[in-house]
């Protein structure tokens, strides 16, 4: 352990020197991180430049100042109040950190640049949203900025992509992604690659057709679009009825961030439910690429492979999760894998070069299916019309999990719920939600847990239980810590090896959809979590 710490210390010292150099070089023209900086991920301890901290989606920071031994000393340094609430949902953002400044988006398309030392804003922005929002009205949330150079990127509830100047908050350009009045909206944190901004779309509850778009960061020009529901005659259309209208409104939102493998040059993104959500009779077939993980060529948006977790979904189990990339030993061989904890209750390990399924195992008590067949398809026992399957919010959801390398643990928030689905013929009205039925949720049977799974077997290694189904995300740090939030508002630290709870702090509002981030500031490790209307920064005493 000692030599690992020494090494880390060296790395962070070098990085500090590097950033001092950078500052003086920038004295003439200060400009923000470029693609190589984002590619370097956690190399500079003072930065957090993309939603998950790096492209892999592990949300595992190398910082080690806060340890299992001292974490009980952790205390709030400041709080930032957004003044904008989303009762029923959460403050879902992950701040970006660079040069002592935090770039933060809030609910209802508010945004700020905040002084990381004091929690005070340099500038604030609020979008004037139309009063007839569709899906955006029921999920008025946002998960964060993307950043490149002096530009920030944010998507909006009326389905636009905006570029800002990060110093002044001035709007540089905005582009419409799709017509919000049909049901489209956007909530994710744009993913910045080399000269590309990748975004996805929300609104699969409406008569929409999902897509992933790439934009030029400077001109705002759209470079390509991948449609998640094929057009007539295109590959995948054979898994749908031969009806252009059904295909044109087949759902398949892409509203959660994806991850990126720079070596393979592949983009990994989750796709949401088919529409209508619960009523499947109008769309017989597997309904590709709904509820799938897709691997795309980031230069063209072309599909390289896909794996469908929930064929012909009837339960709104969007597969919009952070795909977590890791290089691990698999049965004695080094393997590049992508891992997903899915809303359908299964934990999956796939070969990320080919899309081959390596492991699929339930991590909740789901009765929908208990195993994946030889053909890679779930053996469905109960489609939800015969009592108790996970509710439409799922066995987990988009709240980010973490992967702890070395321990080889996939740590995620699990939700144990019990729902019965009652499908009904939908009205198919554009601009109105189109679930195609109702759900009965037995609230008595809900609970939550933070679960650590052995990625080689999918077996539970440890868990910490919560009184209710929880929506908080997870962060881990190389000092052996896991940070997580729960539905009752606690922000907590755990021993990554044992799951022992080491510290908690009541934030005053549920932690919903957000996961913590961490970075070094003036030699001090900061940990930030969003909750309710508040962003709180924690550190050890000075």
């Amino acid at each position, binding site marked *: 352990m000692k030599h690992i710490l020494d090494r880390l210390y060296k790395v962070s010292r070098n990085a500090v020197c590097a950033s001092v150099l950078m500052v003086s070089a920038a004295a003439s023209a200060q400009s923000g991180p470029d693609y190589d900086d984002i590619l370097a991920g956690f190399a500079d301890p003072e930065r957090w430049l993309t939603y998950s901290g790096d492209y892999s989606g592990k949300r595992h920071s190398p910082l080690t100042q806060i340890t299992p031994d001292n974490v009980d000393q952790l205390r709030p340094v400041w709080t930032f109040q957004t003044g904008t609430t989303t009762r029923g949902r959460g403050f879902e953002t992950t701040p970006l950190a660079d040069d002592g400044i935090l770039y933060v988006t809030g609910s209802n398309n508010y945004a700020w640049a905040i002084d990381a*030392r*004091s929690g005070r804003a340099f500038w604030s922005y609020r979008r004037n949203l139309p009063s007839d929002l569709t899906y955006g009205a029921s999920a008025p949330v946002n998960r964060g900025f993307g950043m490149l150079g002096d530009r920030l990127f944010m998507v909006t509830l009326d389905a636009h992509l905006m570029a800002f100047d990060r110093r002044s908050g001035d709007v*540089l350009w905005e582009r419409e992604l799709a017509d919000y009045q049909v049901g489209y909206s956007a909530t994710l944190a744009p993913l910045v690659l080399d000269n590309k901004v990748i975004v996805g779309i929300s609104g699969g509850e409406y008569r929409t057709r999902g897509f992933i778009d790439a934009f030029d960061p400077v001109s705002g020009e759209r470079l390509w679009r991948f449609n998640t529901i094929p057009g007539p005659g295109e590959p995948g259309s054979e898994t749908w009825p031969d009806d252009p209208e059904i295909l044109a409104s087949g759902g398949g939102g892409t509203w959660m961030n994806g991850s990126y493998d720079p070596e393979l040059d592949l983009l990994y993104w989750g796709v949401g439910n088919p529409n209508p959500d619960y009523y499947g009779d109008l769309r017989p077939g597997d309904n590709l690429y709904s509820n799938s993980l897709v691997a795309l060529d980031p230069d063209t948006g072309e599909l390289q492979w896909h794996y469908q977790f929930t064929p012909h979904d009837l339960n709104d189990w969007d597969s919009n999760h952070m795909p977590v990339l890791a290089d691990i030993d698999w049965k004695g061989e080094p393997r590049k894998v992508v891992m997903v904890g899915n809303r359908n209750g299964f934990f999956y390990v796939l070969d990320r070069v080919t899309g081959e399924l390596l492991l699929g195992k339930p991590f909740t008590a789901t009765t929908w299916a208990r195993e994946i067949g030889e053909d890679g398809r779930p053996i469905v026992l109960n489609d939800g019309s015969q009592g108790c399957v996970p509710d439409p919010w799922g066995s987990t959801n988009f709240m980010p999990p973490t992967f702890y390398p070395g321990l080889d643990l996939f740590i995620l928030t699990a939700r144990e719920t019990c729902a019965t689905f009652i499908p009904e013929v939908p009205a198919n009205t554009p601009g109105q939600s189109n679930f195609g039925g109702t759900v009965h949720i037995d609230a008595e049977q809900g609970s939550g847990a933070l679960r650590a799974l052995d990625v080689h077997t999918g077996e539970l290694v440890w868990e910490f239980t919560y009184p209710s189904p929880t929506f908080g995300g997870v962060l881990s740090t190389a000092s052996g810590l896991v940070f997580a939030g729960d539905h009752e508002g606690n922000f907590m630290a755990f021993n990554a090896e044992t799951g022992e709870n080491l510290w908690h702090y009541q934030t005053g509002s549920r932690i919903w959809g957000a996961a913590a981030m961490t970075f070094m500031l003036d030699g001090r490790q900061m940990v930030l979590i969003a909750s309710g209307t508040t962003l709180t920064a924690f550190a050890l005493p000075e």
Partner: protein
Amino acid sequence: MALLPMLLLVSSPALLAQTVNPLEGDPRAAFAGGALFRAQCATCHGADAKGISSIDAPDLTLMWSQRQLSAQDVFDTIRNGIAGSIMPPHDFTDTEIWMLVSHLQNVAVAGVIGLPDGDAANGQRLFARHCAECHRVRGEGGSLGPDLSTITARRSLESLLISVRDPSALIAPGYKPLTVITGSGETVQGVLKSEDAFSLQMMDSNQRLRGFRKQQLRSLERPQQSLMPVFSESLLGQQELIDILNFLDRN
């Protein structure tokens, strides 16, 4: 009652969905709206409608030029209020609300009127040479000074000439000059973005955002001199400045 004919006018069904104010151009409506405004709105927005920043009540004379607002948008805001803020809904008659809209249209900042002819293309070149380092227009330029994309709609010709010839005479809010010396002896010049009793947030002259704890500063000064250089007529002739304003007015 003098208002009766107007009342009849606006309640006729054909006029229910308005994007233009049905009372527009009627000086009596704007006058009555002004009285109503001072009685009902001035505690928050100020009698001159220029807003009170300590309670986040915005300047209503600038809103028309800052965004694409229709009369109907403003009507709806007055009727419905703004949920989650202290801007209340108002249970007035349609006529009364249109009178308030008339008043707000009346006090709206007019911007540049009677701009002398100039060469906008030359203005664009001059802007790039002298101003773009600090000012942004339509997404391009620097950040030390305000975005000037809509400046000619927000400020009069006279006041714009003063801003360029004598910048320190009128310093835009959010751009107050500041000079600090840090604990390590670095002198940092810039504009103040925000401060509390213990910390300050500034943009330095290299257009870098910087936050400081006051107790860690060796000194903090607030010079009266704007960071915008003085552009005298020898540096930038009167016709050249008019060219620049013609370029800005194109937006």
